[in-house]
């Protein structure tokens, strides 16, 4: 497998010509403490989905077929979770938590946009074409991500599992032989690190809080845990990518995942639920009954008004 002829550095520096925000970005990198201000805020300097879309359109970054399929998997995971979490906005237990979940949703949406922009580079498709104009069986997300929000504890249980899995995955992908994958992972891993902390804090508080909150937390993990095994299932694609140094076998993340989640669960005085694993099949387009309804809601506007912008 060949590596795209681009480096993360190149995609990061090509910030001109697509959006006013780049004006702030290019100066942000050079502004030291000498120009520090209590009121002037810059957006900061980081790899953005727009940078990847630009690199792809210019041909400076192009995924191999295998890498594109892998990026599609990770992009779909993040997109579906972002859509799920977005449903909490205006519905969370407190305003502060509303915003916290909204921030996590937006982080995930950012990762999805990056991965999908890159995956689309294989066949010249945009992130929007991939997000809004594929049908259910073309989505490659695992079933965990599409599971319903349930109550707050179910959402926290799902987020806890997702965050610890994504952290271990992205941490390793920063070393990917594919420079764009490595760049996206390097940006994402810091954000996911915070998602881990957020969900772990809530697992502890709910599990060690009142009798009712503890009952709900235990129930949340029981509902979510059947979908854990699918996260760590290897297949031909991951074997080829691992051999090429572009990714790692999902099964290789399991030991760290078990150890780190185990530490939090032990502190929360919770047991790992003993439940049978769900059938899975998301990576092959076989999804639980929930995804179709989600996609109908997510895609209806773009399909009703193709090309609409606002």
């Amino acid at each position, binding site marked *: 497998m060949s590596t795209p002829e681009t480096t993360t550095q190149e995609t990061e520096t090509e910030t001109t010509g697509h959006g006013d925000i780049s004006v702030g970005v290019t100066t942000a990198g050079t502004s030291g403490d000498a120009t*520090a201000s*209590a009121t002037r*805020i810059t957006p900061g300097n980081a790899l953005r989905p727009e940078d990847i879309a630009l690199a792809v359109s210019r041909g400076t970054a192009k995924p191999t077929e295998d890498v594109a399929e892998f990026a599609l998997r990770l992009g779909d995971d993040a997109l579906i979770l972002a859509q799920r979490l977005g449903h909490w906005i205006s519905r969370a237990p*407190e305003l502060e938590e509303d*915003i*916290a979940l909204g*921030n996590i949703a937006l982080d995930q949406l950012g990762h999805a946009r990056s991965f999908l922009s890159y995956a689309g580079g294989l066949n010249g498709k945009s992130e929007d074409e991939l997000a809004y104009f594929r049908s259910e069986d073309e989505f490659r997300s695992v079933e965990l991500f599409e599971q319903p929000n349930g109550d707050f504890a179910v959402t926290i249980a799902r987020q806890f599992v997702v965050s610890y899995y994504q952290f271990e995955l992205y941490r390793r992908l920063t070393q990917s032989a594919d420079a764009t994958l490595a760049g996206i992972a390097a940006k994402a891993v810091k954000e996911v690190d915070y998602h881990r902390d957020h969900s772990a*804090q809530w697992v502890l508080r709910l599990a060690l809080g009142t009798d009712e909150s503890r009952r709900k937390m235990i129930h949340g993990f029981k509902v979510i845990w059947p979908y854990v095994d699918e996260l760590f299932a290897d297949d031909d694609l991951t074997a080829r990518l691992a051999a090429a140094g572009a990714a790692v076998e999902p099964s290789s993340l399991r030991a760290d995942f078990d150890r780190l989640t185990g530490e939090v669960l032990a502190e929360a005085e919770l047991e790992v639920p003993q439940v049978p694993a769900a059938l899975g099949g998301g990576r092959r387009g076989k999804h639980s009954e929930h995804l179709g309804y989600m996609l109908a809601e997510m895609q209806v506007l773009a399909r009703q008004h193709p090309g609409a912008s606002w």
Partner: protein
Amino acid sequence: MSPETPAGNVWPIWEVFVRSSRGLSHVHAGSLHAPDAAMALRNARDLYTRRNEGVSIWVVPADAIASSDPDAKGAFFESPQGKDYRHATYYTKSEGVKHL
């Protein structure tokens, strides 16, 4: 440190101070609800630094802050007015001093 939880199952209020850059002071950014200090820091991060505003956050239980009495404005804050001699305005600037 954990402030007393008010009645009615409402999270207590915390005041948030954000430092935007090294070398600057923490500045009051606003307030929020949180069940404890650890969550208050996280909520502050989510509410007040999501547009790259900060490098450091302090949270303080709102009821730990003693504030001046708005009714005492005259006695507290109007007495220094007109006391020019408290300002360094009568000195002649020495030659070659740029920043004064």
